[in-house]
């Protein structure tokens, strides 16, 4: 019931902004959204699903690579030697916003087949890497010492402790990291598409609509699509997270 009230409040505030001539009416935007979903816009000739597919593919590519590196690296942080070696470097790189990497990404990928797409995948990589790495390494490093002690009592060696104690204990951290990383990656790709031209993507769509002008409902439709996809991704990962017996309800 609270969700319904929340929706009513949102629509009411929107209509208020509409009457103040700040935004177009919610019903106009909803119709535009449906039209864009099926028909597309005459300027770009693509519908919102096509733009969403382009953005999603880039996010999955960038975030996938990020998780392939951040998860093992995060777990290895359990070893003190690795931690002292990598932690200072990563702590310096972590505060740099993904968008600050754009010029460097262009230089890196200038000789690649599609420099813009590679640069955008790299931006997603940067956005997804750090949240997932921090989450995994936090869990790995906070493995309760009594579990480790117990494993030692049973004669487990360091690699066995890592495999049978640290990694299973870090699984919630991995899932949370993937969920947060995908969310940041999704935000990064939209911003990267707005800055660099790629010919498709929701960020690109919003930017072109702004440049051509007179398309506030289209811009809001693009934003709604970003929100819906972000919500869908988060909901799906939360669902996966709940399948594990140790999931923390507080994270919901």
């Amino acid at each position, binding site marked *: 019931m609270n969700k319904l009230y929340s929706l009513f409040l949102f629509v009411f505030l929107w209509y208020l902004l509409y009457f103040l001539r700040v935004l177009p009416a919610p019903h106009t935007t909803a119709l535009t959204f449906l039209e864009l979903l099926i028909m597309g816009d*005459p*300027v*770009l*000739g*693509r*519908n919102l*699903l*096509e733009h*969403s*597919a382009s953005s*999603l593919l880039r996010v999955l590519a960038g975030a996938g690579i990020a998780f392939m590196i951040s998860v093992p690296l995060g777990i290895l942080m359990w070893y003190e030697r690795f931690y002292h070696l990598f932690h200072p470097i990563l702590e310096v790189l972590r505060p740099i916003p993904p968008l600050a990497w754009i010029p460097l990404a262009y230089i890196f990928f*200038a*000789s690649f*087949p*599609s*420099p813009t797409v590679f640069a955008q995948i790299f931006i997603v990589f940067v956005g997804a890497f750090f949240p997932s790495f921090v989450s995994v390494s936090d869990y790995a490093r906070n493995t309760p010492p009594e579990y480790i002690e117990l494993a030692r009592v049973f004669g487990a060696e360091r690699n066995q402790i890592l495999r049978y104690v640290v990694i299973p204990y870090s699984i919630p951290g991995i899932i949370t990291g993937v969920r947060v990383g995908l969310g940041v990656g999704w935000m990064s790709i939209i911003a990267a598409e707005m800055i660099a*031209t*790629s*010919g498709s993507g929701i960020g690109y769509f919003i930017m*072109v609509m702004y*440049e*051509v*002008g*007179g*398309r506030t409902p289209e811009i809001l439709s693009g934003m709604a699509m970003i929100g819906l996809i972000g919500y*869908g991704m988060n*909901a*799906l990962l939360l*669902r996966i997270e*709940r399948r594990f017996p140790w999931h923390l309800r507080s994270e919901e």
Partner: protein
Amino acid sequence: MLSKNGKHDGSIFRIEFLIVISAILILAVIFMGCSSEKTVNVVKLSPPDMIEQIKLGKIDAFVAWEPFPSKAVRDGFRVFMKSGEIWPNHPCCVVAYRTGKADDEMLKALVWAHVKATRFIKNHENRDKVVEYASQFTGLDRETVSIALENIRYVEYPDEKEFRHYYEFLKESKILKRSVSEMGYESEDAFFGDFLRKDIYREVVEKLSENPDYIPEKAGSIKLGYITADLHHLALYVAMKEGYLDEVFDNVELRQFPNGVAIMEAFRLGEIDAAYLGGAPATLKRINDGIEIRIVAGVNNEGSAIIAKDDIVKPDDLAGKTVAIPGFGTVQDFLMRKVLAEGGLKQR
């Protein structure tokens, strides 16, 4: 979501169902897109990036304003079509002002300086000096700007008929979101009569024909915008270098912008009084966003070109290729759409 008795209430399954349906739709759209033939991938790039991208082989052709096509020619690429061959005498850049920000005295002074500079450019006796100014303005060598200057027709006032032609294109391609009646005009004629303001230009030209030494009264200060290194805007640089602007203004504050859209935003925010910009963003943003500007002079006609790789010799050779335009709704976009239509191609 778990209910109190520990069973799923179904909302999560609804979310999953929606996600699966969305994924299927997205995949269907991708396959549909991949299977379509006779399409051209159109991307938006800034003209300097176009040259780099065609060198790297990332795009197969591009359309841009001078001096970028001539720069590409100097780098070994070929002019596929000049804009005058696609749409003869098409209008391009204009001088516009923000309604309410510039009074008639300021406009007379500005139009006078612009007319004097344009006539200076068109006078063949000044050729060497014009090439030198063009080289300084764009940062390119004299040979490149000499080629580029051949492709630009500097004018004092735009061709109204051709301006209407461009407007019809915007309307037909549904790029315009509002009609002129929604803006409060009785007809399109009424809109264009207001948008293309000719009285100032007519008065200045009449006075100059009566007395070639005519100089309007000094008009105080002006904040003037233009696009960086756009050779179409050479008249502004000439007006500055030849002292025409100094003769009619106490203070001229010049502001550079990357493109016409940025200039229109500056108009909206009241950051500039007048500007040299493309007629395309001026018209688009005037109608779509209701930014109150009016055009008082023309700057140039034609002056763009399509550069293509060697294997592209006729429009239908562009099928399946990637081409770059500087922006949607621009004159260059219109030129490219005309060429694609000639080749029976569709934009993707």
